């Protein structure tokens, strides 16, 4: 089902639809998380992705109020090539991996509790404190970045120099 939804994300003409389909994918994935008893992640996934991020996407779409692909479908060769290579990648990956003898490895259901917020929290703030701090820097930079980008600076000026190439 996740796969189906994913394919729909890719092929659906109307961006809004694909957003919605993406949400479906996320929900499906969250389901898998539950199955793999990563409860915390499941919740976070739903809240952050399906909730916040997707809303952001929709918002941007509305802002640009383009609901259908406006441009005509040019160079479909690129499309076909894209699909083909994507398929090829899938093939080679599968080919590479199916030789992996992981049959024995079982991901069993409903056992263990590492997925609980409690344990995760302990690990996070004990072993993973450094990365945690670091990620704050990441956010900081993102924030600054958005600020820089966000400010208006008047009308676009033509690119400096002449247009090279060709």
């Amino acid at each position, binding site marked *: 089902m996740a796969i189906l939804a994913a394919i729909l994300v890719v092929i659906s003409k109307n961006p809004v639809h694909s957003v919605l389909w993406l949400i479906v994918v996320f929900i499906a994935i969250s389901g898998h998380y539950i199955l793999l008893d990563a409860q915390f992640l499941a919740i976070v996934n739903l809240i952050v992705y399906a909730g916040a991020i997707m809303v952001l996407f929709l918002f941007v779409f509305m802002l640009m109020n383009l609901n259908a692909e406006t441009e005509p479908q040019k160079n479909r060769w690129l499309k076909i090539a894209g699909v083909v290579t994507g398929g090829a990648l899938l093939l080679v990956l599968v*080919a590479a991996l199916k030789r992996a003898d992981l049959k024995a490895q079982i991901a069993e259901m409903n056992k263990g509790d590492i997925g609980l917020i409690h344990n995760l929290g302990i690990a996070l703030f004990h072993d993973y404190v450094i990365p945690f701090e670091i990620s704050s820097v990441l956010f900081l930079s993102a924030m600054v970045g958005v600020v820089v980008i966000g400010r208006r600076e008047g009308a676009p000026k033509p690119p400096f120099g002449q247009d090279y190439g060709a």
Partner: protein
Amino acid sequence: MTHLVWLVPALPLAGFLINGLFRNSLPKSLTGIVGCGTVLVSFVLSLLIFGEVRQEGFQPAVINLFDFISVDKLHIAFSFQVDQLSTLFLLIITGVGFLIHLYSTSYMHEEEPPHFARYFSYLNLFVFSMLLLVLGANYVILFIGWEGVGLCSYLLIGYWFKNLDYGYAARKAFIMNRIGDLGFLIAIFLMITKFGSVDFAEVFGKAGGVGRGAITAITLLLFVGATGKSAQIPLYTWLPDAMAGPTPVSALIHAATMVTAGIYMIARSHVLYDLAPATQTVVAVIGLATALLAATIALKQHDIKKVLAYSTVSQLGYMFLGLGVGAYDGAVFHVMTHAFFKALLFLGAGSVIHAMGGEQDMRKMGGLRKWMPATHITFLLACLAISGIPPFSGFFSKDEILAAAYGKNPIYYVIGVFTALLTAFYMFRLYAMTFRGAFRGTHDQEHHLHESPAAMTIPLWILAILAVVAGFLGIPEAFAPHAHWLAGYLRPALGEAAHGPELAKGTELGLMAVSVALAVIGVGYAWVRFSKKPDLAEPTGFGKVLANKWYVDELYNAIVVRPLDLLAQFLVFFEKNIIDGIVNGVGRLVHYGSRQLRLLQSGLVGGYVLLMVVGIVVLFLVELFIKK
């Protein structure tokens, strides 16, 4: 005395330097004095040395001046060898050389002082190199002289450098000599490999020790060198062209001395040649062929100097015949006599040309004996000498060679004698057309006719005397036993067998009779035929072939010069388009590739990602299939 021998070449060298460096400041008179004086002094020195050498039991002396080249095993000293042979040549060179210098002082007096000086400096340089050639105690020094004289002949032929044709003649001479020199050079290297030395003494000492093949190779290569220098088939064509130079030069270089260097060299290395009969045959045949060929060509020439030139070639052929049949002293003897009478002939011709105001075509001459008696007499004597009329010098030397040839192989003799007949014929054709009959030149030429000044006639007389009496240095056994002074004198240098095969007294006399008879016939026929009505008509038929020298020059052009030229043209093309083309092609390829690769940078994100993914796929494929 011999230890002072280095002075003999040194003096002309000094003369060369003085005249060369101060050519702009010296007055002609001084130049002449320097030019002649140095040669005269070295002549005197040579005489003194000769006086020492001619004594019985004189051992060849090697004077070591300094080490020229010495690399680990190879040691080449700059050393001179004084023995009978070299001394004889010293005398010829310096003696005749001096006379010709003297002659030149007046022959060239119209030249500007600088050029006059240039002329004499060249001449001195030539004498120096020639002396180096004959004095050298090893093949390298000999070779140095060898190329030196070549250079001088180049410079002197092209002396009047304003005239391009003269220049080309000079170039031809130099290059043809170079071809021979290459052979000589290879011979030297072969000696180095075989004997580890180039000293005469050492080489001859070891000569017996090495294989027949090597000796033959060496001797043949040396002979190649000789053909270049001494104008033998196939490299003789430069000599006639060399007549472009001033006449005294022709006399000195292209008749008396330089061209006989080949004979000297072979006589010098007679030890090797004795060991290589095959080569001897080759030498003999080539010599004979050259003699005949040149003689036939001489029959139909109209340029007075050309005739003499071909006769020189022919006479040189004789000498090689002599060498080929082992009569080394005969050959040397002929060198000497020939030096006298041929120099005389050239100088005579020179004085004729001088009188005719530069005219060289015999058809415009005639009856000159009225105007220039001295020249006429001396010239006649010389003609008799070269034609082999007894008791003139030519008779003795030529007959000695012919006799030896007969001993070797009668056919040699037959051809030789026939050539002698031709010689007599064309020489007297020349004589008759020049001095007999009526004058055929223009009026002002006739007006201008006069006997040459003393500076020119004195040498003529001296040479004439020599040309007459020189023969008595080598009276054949047939006339008087052990009267052959020259043979005796040269025996230490040329070895016992130097005289060639001995003949019975009777046969020898018979042979002489035949040759003399033929000579007389030739002389007489030519005399009567050309005194009255000289041949002015354009030659036809076979005569035309002869007049055009058997078209040999044309032949060489067709088979050597043209192909080389075409090849060079092709190479230039090849250079520009193939080799350089490839080099530049690489550059162009890079450019082209660059222009194409740029197009990958399509500017489309989709395209970029696509290519990236393709790259990943490729890596995985390598991982899956190609690797291990």
